[in-house]
């Protein structure tokens, strides 16, 4: 088997594939978990991911109807700063029909191509704005357009977004991706989609998935700089953990308690 065990192509597994075929194979085909530190210092990384994850949950609460000021964090000054910024302009100019933590997918390359969005703001027949909150300083606005995340999210929403428009057709021109930065005062990056980009993305993603499917071996990357933020370093004998300031991963959102409870599991 060469395809992800989850039967989904996602930003994460395709990015891993592009970074290192072996990492992709270990993480997504074999689903091997390696308990090594992802980055150092571990404590800073933990604080950063927990803060990011809490921020994403708070944003979800607002969409679910909780007043933003009720959520003002009193125990974390940095988060409080992010939250003040969120209240000021994260939702500015967005259509008022909003969905948080949206999962969309389309059949693709024999499996599904999936996107999990922080927020989708919809004005049927006119605009579908995908909002992605960036909570680390590393993400550079320039690199965002060429990012696999941008490609996959806009493509998937262009194809499957009518689930949120009551069936009204979605054209690529209706789709916009907006990166919003919590950790500093950078303005949002807005990337409006087009038919030409849609076609180019489809061709590129198809070629990528075909390449992946045709692969019979999964070699380690030659570029050792990619190993810095990889938990499989010890498996591959590839040096020490990278530093948290250079890492640009975003936290995974959840309500905690991932393990099964006494009655009924909590997923």
């Amino acid at each position, binding site marked *: 088997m060469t395809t992800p065990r989850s039967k989904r192509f996602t930003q994460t597994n395709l990015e891993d594939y592009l970074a290192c075929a072996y990492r992709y194979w270990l993480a997504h085909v074999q689903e091997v978990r*390696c*308990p090594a530190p992802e980055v150092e210092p571990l404590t800073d990384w933990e604080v950063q991911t927990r803060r990011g994850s809490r921020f994403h949950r708070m944003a979800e609460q607002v969409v679910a109807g909780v007043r933003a000021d*009720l959520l003002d964090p009193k125990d974390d000054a940095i988060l409080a700063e992010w939250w003040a910024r969120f209240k000021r302009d994260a939702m500015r100019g967005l259509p008022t029909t909003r*969905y948080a933590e949206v999962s969309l997918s389309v059949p693709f390359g024999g499996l599904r191509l999936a996107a999990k969005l922080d927020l989708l703001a919809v004005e049927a027949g006119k605009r579908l704005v995908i909002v992605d909150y960036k909570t680390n300083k590393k993400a550079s606005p320039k690199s965002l357009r060429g990012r696999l995340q941008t490609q996959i999210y806009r493509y998937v929403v262009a194809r499957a977004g009518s*689930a949120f428009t009551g069936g009204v057709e979605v054209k690529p021109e209706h789709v916009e991706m907006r990166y919003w930065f919590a950790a500093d005062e950078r303005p949002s990056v807005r990337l409006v989609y087009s038919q030409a980009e849609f076609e180019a993305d489809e061709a590129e993603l198809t070629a990528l998935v075909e390449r992946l499917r045709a692969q019979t071996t999964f070699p380690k990357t030659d570029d050792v700089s990619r190993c810095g933020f990889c938990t499989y370093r*010890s498996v591959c004998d590839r040096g020490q953990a990278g530093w948290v300031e250079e890492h640009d991963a975003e936290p995974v959102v959840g309500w905690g*308690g991932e393990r099964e409870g*006494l009655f009924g599991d909590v*997923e």
Partner: protein
Amino acid sequence: MGQALVEGDEMGWSEGQTRLIEHGRGGLWVRGVAGAGKTTAAVERVRRLLGRGVAGHTVMICTPQRLLSRPYRGFVGGAERVMGSDPQFMTFGRLTQYGVGLYWPWVAEAAGLPTGVQPTFLDAESAQWLMGLVVAPQMAQAGIFQTVKLPRARIYGQVLDNMNKAALVGFDVHTIGERLSRAWSGEVSQLRMYEDVQTAADLFRAYCLETGALDYSLTVELFLRHVWPLPAARAHFEAMARHMIYDNCEEDAPAAHHVFAELVGTCESAVVMLDDEANYRRFLGADEQSAAGVLAEACDESLVLEPYGDVEARRALVGHFAVSFGFERGELPEADPFVGVERLSARLFPDMLDRVAERVAAWVKDDGVPVNEIALVSPYVSDGLLFAMRYRLERMGIETRSLRPSRMLRQEPVVRCLVTLAYLAHPAWGIVPTVEDIGHVLVTVIEGLDPVRAALLASVSRKRFSPFETLVAAMQERVTLALGERYERLRRWVEAYQQGEPIALDHFFSRVYAEVLSRRGFRMHGDFEMAQAVAALVDSAASYRLMMAALPMEVDSAVLYLEGLSSGLLGQRSLSEPDVLEGAGVLIAPAYTFLMANQFVTHQVWLDAGSGGWTERLAQPLAHPYVLSAQWEDGRVWTGIDEGLSAAQGAYRLIAGLLRRCRGTVVLASSEYGEQGMPQQGVLLNAFGRIVRRVAKREGRKTDGV
């Protein structure tokens, strides 16, 4: 008899299934025994709903536990589904935690909980652990639970079970002890235990309210009281459930039934399904009568599905078992109930396992039956039984897989090893590992080191890691320089660690793994199975640390964690069940777990059919699944007749459930002496014997007994 097929339906759906698939607006209440094709039809319904343009995020698929949603997840995750948003999978546990987390500011304020802090959701293990910390002083001072001869984990587990039932059934958590006492008619000393149960529950609840630690019972209460009535919350959940599928509702408790019934009342369409003669999770509060009342009432139409492709003989055997367990079934079917039934008996337990292995090998090798089509089930699957069965089958080249709810982390050799290393690296904790423990570390981690040399190294290091160079030359030679160098790498790492500030325990495990143990020259290098065990340990220690950090507890978290781990109160590692089910191999599983995974196979072996475990209720001296249920009339006394009836009903349902999930042969395998060497006098075999005699009598034959 299966139902008539709808003419022209090329998929072969029965009339009833077609109704389920094509059901329009409002709620449809569906019942039928396992194998009636309810779930298969419901998956098809989801396919058609999405196919005709219903938005996935407005379809909610509810099941009592994640495992039961597997057929739906298979379809939803597959490429044949149309593009769109994904349906929502929901369990009542998830709904309550999600709801309380989402609307926390309002919940905290309304419930008088500490505002300004994040809720700390406790899983079962953390709740047990915390209860231990809260109750322990009372155990010492006031002597509570002094008369209970049970491991602490089971005491706390049963108190929590009772608290969960209070929330799920809807009675006051402060009345658990009274309710249990009112139903008790035996020894007076038991009443003291019930008082202690109430004391522990009260103490724990007070602690949770004070700190914002939310165990399952409190989460459910908060959800029902403060989230569900919120208009914003209700609108949010209703938007997620415009179309609903609720499968196996009999395995949920009344609180879930009430909440889901209200959603049925507001959605565009709902199909609610109940498995007859199941209710296997009764000990967790599952209540089929509540389901049949509340949910059937909420639906507009109803439907009964008959077993699909059911064999007459299997039906006959189920009917005979019903009679044998004392449940009248009217006229018994004429068909021979023993078609597809084999008996396999041996004198000793290991001989039985040998014979079972031979039978399985014949299916696989002679008849070409795929390994995944065979299940070996038993009331309990001990480590010994699992190992012995696996060994026999794997020696014959037959793959196996096991489905057990949880495994203790402390049983993993790698975990033991990391715990010893933690003690060695933190001498300030004052716990000195034994020579044996150090030997175990060395042999487990150092590639190429055998037990003899590991023991030698451990003994000379005198409970501390001594430098290799300090060993006498003859000793160094015996160990070899190459292995000595590996030993040194580990020793130097520990020494360097001791020079710095101690770090969080999970970080310690992660670092020593990454920097030494998974490197070349060590056994964990490239061993992914060991990596999974270490990852589970890191997760467990991390979630424990974060929980403790969120609570006002002045305790040394790391040492306490290690104590909890070694006592088994902490570190119950969840197996990823869906993965096991997707793997290849003969399935070895406890009978109830097999039923709750809703697996259908060609052949089953009932291991240890002579064991009393087939009919015994789970021993819970501090709890009571019947007395603390919505169906119990408060104040009535639980009698021996009730006990007998509930045991017989449980046994019958277990057996019927297994038979309905077997398409080919059922082998009843037993030995005169059980796993522990005791003579076996099981009720299951007696019931089977009565069937043999009854059939023989009907046919005018004599029997030699069974």
